[in-house]
């Protein structure tokens, strides 16, 4: 008996080893649900509370399901009506006037009016976490029960995107009665109502039958807390999860042959860039130029980023640049020019230190070999995320790769990062007082035309400093089960999901 046990054990172990070796996994008998009414989504953050005005790093997917915003993103991330059925921008280009729908009710039956919008904005402002809100919303005013004006700080600010993504309307009545308790007993106007929070940080929601855009097809939703990436992709494959809200290249490799899974790509607002800082590079403009010419971006996209990126010649992603696209282009890959500048550089012997976080390892290697072709040695220093940012803020980084850009950023707000008092990049480069003054002016100017001129100046300046190599505009991906359809593609880029729109696949 014992001999057969060991035999069975050996066979089992061998079988498991073999199945582990094959990268191409065929899913087994995953039961097909008859008519799918339950949706399981994996979030990028654990749920802590459900009050969108508290600003805790919680599960925003739940928030967007329970609450609505004034406007929403369409499939291409353009702005379309939501709670606001129409709006106008005044002649100064600074004040929006929104007309609210009259048929929206909160989950407790009360009607949504301009008072609630005002209350939401007031509550946010009172919270120090939302101190940055002023960068998008300067002031607001109730005109009548269904009309409200919102003023933006300058003519370029992407207040609409900010409203779509960050401002979720809470009911004045329910919230003011018990602000602290609201966090665990949220009342919104959204497609889904809060049911419960699980100990592991997952959220359970059920459909709002009285939703103003129509009853959602998915009756119940479970939003799961984030899992380890390897485990997450497996859960998608076994059917335990229907939507993985972000997937990286490694995970994609695993599911590319899985017929039950499909992916959605979106070119969003973030860009991966290589930043050059530190004393040595600050004092050697030729070396910096050499590096700008010397990195083979297309190669990096193909090899290191699994092809998930597009070439860029601007300091920020295409969507962020907007009308400024191509205004101050950064030179592209040119090996000959790079070599020319290397020849003129001061010190080409001391190794350059490239600090990264673990997920950037392959990109770093690509850069390392590109620069090696120029005779420059690069040492890669891998740090944990917190350690990396601490080093950056302490001006101890020489080269670093960062992915920057969100759907609410615009060029004017970005230029601040390069001012000498910005702990983010500016204080680690040799910035001029002229630039700082320029940024000061930008911060003060409200008029769109004036602002444009100043921004172009700033862009030209920073490009000319050769402190940034735009590696690629990030292509964001999400993965879903083929049992459902109608996920808005922009969700991959903005992380704003409209779960009420999701239908079961035919």
């Amino acid at each position, binding site marked *: 008996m014992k001999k057969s046990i060991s035999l069975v054990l050996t066979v089992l172990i061998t079988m*498991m080893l073999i199945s582990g070796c094959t990268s191409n996994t065929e899913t087994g008998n995953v039961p097909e649900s008859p008519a799918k009414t339950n949706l399981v989504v994996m979030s990028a953050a654990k749920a802590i509370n459900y009050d969108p005005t508290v600003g805790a790093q919680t599960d925003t997917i739940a928030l967007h399901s329970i609450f609505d915003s004034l406007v929403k993103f369409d499939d291409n991330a353009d702005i379309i009506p939501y709670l606001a059925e129409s709006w106008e921008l005044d002649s100064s280009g600074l004040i929006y006037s929104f007309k609210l729908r009259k048929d929206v009710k909160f989950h407790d039956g009360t009607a949504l009016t301009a008072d609630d919008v005002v209350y939401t904005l007031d509550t946010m402002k009172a919270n120090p976490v939302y101190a940055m809100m002023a960068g998008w919303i300067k002031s607001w005013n109730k005109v009548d029960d269904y009309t409200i004006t919102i003023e933006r700080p300058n003519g370029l600010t992407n207040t609409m995107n900010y409203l779509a993504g960050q401002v979720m309307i809470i009911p004045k009545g329910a919230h003011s009665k018990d602000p602290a308790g609201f966090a665990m007993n949220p009342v919104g106007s959204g497609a889904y109502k809060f049911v419960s929070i699980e*100990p592991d940080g997952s959220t359970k929601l059920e459909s709002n039958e009285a939703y103003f855009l129509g009853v959602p097809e998915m009756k119940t939703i479970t939003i799961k807390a984030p899992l380890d990436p390897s485990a997450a992709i497996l859960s998608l494959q076994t059917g335990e999860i229907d939507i993985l809200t972000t997937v990286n290249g490694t995970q994609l490799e695993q599911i590319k042959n899985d017929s039950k899974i499909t992916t959605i790509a979106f070119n969003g607002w973030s860009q991966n860039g290589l930043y050059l800082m530190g004393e040595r590079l600050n004092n050697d403009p030729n070396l910096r130029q050499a590096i700008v010419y010397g990195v083979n971006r297309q190669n990096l996209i193909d090899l290191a980023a699994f092809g998930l990126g597009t070439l860029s010649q601007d300091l920020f992603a295409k969507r962020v640049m907007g009308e400024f696209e191509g205004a101050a282009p950064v030179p592209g890959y040119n090996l000959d020019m790079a070599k020319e500048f290397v020849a003129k550089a001061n010190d080409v012997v001391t190794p350059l230190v490239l600090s990264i976080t673990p997920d950037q390892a392959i990109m770093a290697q690509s850069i390392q070999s590109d620069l090696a072709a120029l005779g420059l040695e690069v040492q890669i220093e891998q740090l944990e995320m917190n350690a990396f940012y601490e080093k950056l803020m302490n001006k101890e980084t020489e080269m670093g790769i960062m992915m920057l850009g969100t759907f609410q950023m615009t060029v004017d707000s970005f230029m601040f990062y390069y001012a000498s008092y910005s702990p983010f990049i500016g204080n680690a480069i040799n910035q001029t007082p002229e630039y700082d003054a320029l940024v000061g002016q930008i911060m003060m100017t409200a008029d769109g035309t004036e602002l444009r001129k100043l921004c172009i100046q700033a862009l030209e300046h920073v490009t000319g400093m050769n402190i940034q190599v735009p590696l690629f505009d990030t292509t964001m991906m999400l993965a879903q089960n083929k049992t459902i359809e109608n996920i808005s593609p922009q969700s991959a880029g903005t992380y704003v999901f409209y779960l009420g729109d999701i239908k079961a696949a035919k």
Partner: protein
Amino acid sequence: MYKYIARRLLSIIPILLLTIFIVFVILESTPGDPAMIILGRDASPDALNALREELGFNKPMLLRYLDYVQGIFTRFDFGESYRSKQPVFDNILVQFPTTLKLAIFSVIVASIVGIPLGIVSAVRQYSLTDVALTVSALFLASIPGFWLSLLLVLFFSLLLGVLPSTGIDSWKNYILPVATLALPSAAILMRITRAQMMEVWKQDYIRTARAKGANEWRVITKHAIKNALMPVITIVGMSFAGLLGGTVIVELIFGMPGLGNLIISAIKLKDIPIVMAGTIFLSTLFMLIMLLVDLLYAFIDPRTKSQFKR
């Protein structure tokens, strides 16, 4: 006997204080500012400072340490989580049962599998069974937990589709995680039991038992096992204590909301109150379990028992 227990219980306190101090220092020296993590990197310096003031971060470390220790011992107050503002101890109590279940089931499975196989292996020394078992044990004990769990999920969840890979909805969710934890543990137990049995097997009193006319079964069960298993029981106890803190990887991979998961997330986010409370909780538990194991040993080994009677 009671003096001994009292002494041991009291000795937990200084060790605990030292542990708290060490963890404090470690958390202090690791990079990451809790205020910045909560508010985001681009928060204004004023907002950051205000939060730091609120969290008490502007006081020197020693002062914070003393405040904290005083809070625990006088009010049993472990503070609130930086992120959720909920009392930390409640958080821990909610998530601890999952870890406890994992540890208990794993120890039980490991013992049921490992100990009898170890006995069989020793009694059939150098036979084919013994060799097969010893090799498997070596293999299982060397497998990294991360790899084993993914392998099990690939096989049972993906290929066969019979077991879930995440969550704690039903008892089925515990099967793969417990297997991941129990198998290497079982392998180790098997080897130790085998070694102990082999030692005992050579002893004279085994020969005496045979000379009395006892059959092999009786020799194994009535004479060998009791002697061989005493040290093994200590190891089982230590395994259990170790597992309470060692379920982290399994909890992460299988998405189980246990204590390990809680502490790891807290470390990443520098949610110091949770990390501290979690560590204190686990250390105390560990020390109590070791005390129990020692007492158990005294209980079952007559030689040690007499030492205590004095």
